[in-house]
């Protein structure tokens, strides 16, 4: 049952991702495809028993980050854009072919390896695995320094974004 749900969520995520990359009509539709991908990935996280992270995925990615994208797209009132003109196309086709070949190799490798190839599998999870209690305890004890560092990162990013996007006085 959970395996089939995983396949369904995975299919939605891949279709949404393809829709985001291949849609050249408008950027808002791309952002909405990204929302579908993020929500599907949140479902996959819940299936993998990462409940807290799944909830944060939906809140932060599908909620905040994509709203920011949509806001900027509508603020800038973007025209439609297409794929590159023929002059620049050869390099990009090469890039796409290389990415496709690497992808095929990776997926083939991942699916043909036996299940025992990744050691350390645990069937029995501890009580409350993936809940906010256990994740929070790990975050605020073993990884407290990294957590504080992320607060500095967020502060500097916030100041940087305000400075970058601010209209200079005089020269609009």
């Amino acid at each position, binding site marked *: 049952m959970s*395996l089939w749900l*995983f396949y369904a969520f*995975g299919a939605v995520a*891949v279709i949404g*991702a393809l829709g*985001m*990359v291949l849609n050249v009509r408008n*950027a808002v539709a*791309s952002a909405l495809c990204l929302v579908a*991908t993020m929500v599907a*990935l949140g479902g*996959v996280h819940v*299936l*993998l028993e*990462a409940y*807290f*992270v799944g909830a*944060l*995925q939906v809140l932060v*990615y599908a909620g905040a*980050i994509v709203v920011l*994208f949509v806001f*900027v797209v509508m603020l*800038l009132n*973007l025209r439609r*854009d297409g*794929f*590159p003109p023929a002059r620049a196309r050869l390099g*990009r086709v090469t*890039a*796409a072919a290389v990415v496709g070949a690497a*992808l095929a190799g*990776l*997926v083939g490798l*991942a*699916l043909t390896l036996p299940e025992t190839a*990744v050691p*350390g*599998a*645990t069937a*029995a*999870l*501890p009580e409350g*695995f*993936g809940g906010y209690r*256990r*994740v929070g305890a*790990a*975050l605020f004890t*073993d990884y407290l320094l990294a957590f504080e560092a992320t607060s500095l*990162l*967020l502060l500097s*990013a*916030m100041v*940087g*974004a*305000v400075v*970058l*996007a601010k209209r200079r006085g005089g020269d*609009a």
Partner: protein
Amino acid sequence: MIPIAHVIALSAVLFAIGALGVLVRRNLVVMLMSIELMLNAANLAFIGFARHHGDETGHVFVLMVIVVAAAEVAVGLGILIALFRNRASVDVEDASLLKW
């Protein structure tokens, strides 16, 4: 239980689509979204291995990645708005002043 190989395969597919988006699209907004997609693929691998090993350290790393993604989007969209103000375009081909 979901096999770890299938989780990694899904993660690889999403990462490749994100890389493809950065390589073939010219719209800076869509390129930023593709970068988000690649970060999400990495998150999925973290979650899959956390489930596989029964260890929540992967979840903590995913939280860090989410914070980095949020910071990156804020700064990236700030640069985007500054670029649009100067060039009236978000096409990366128009921002070629530093290109060799």
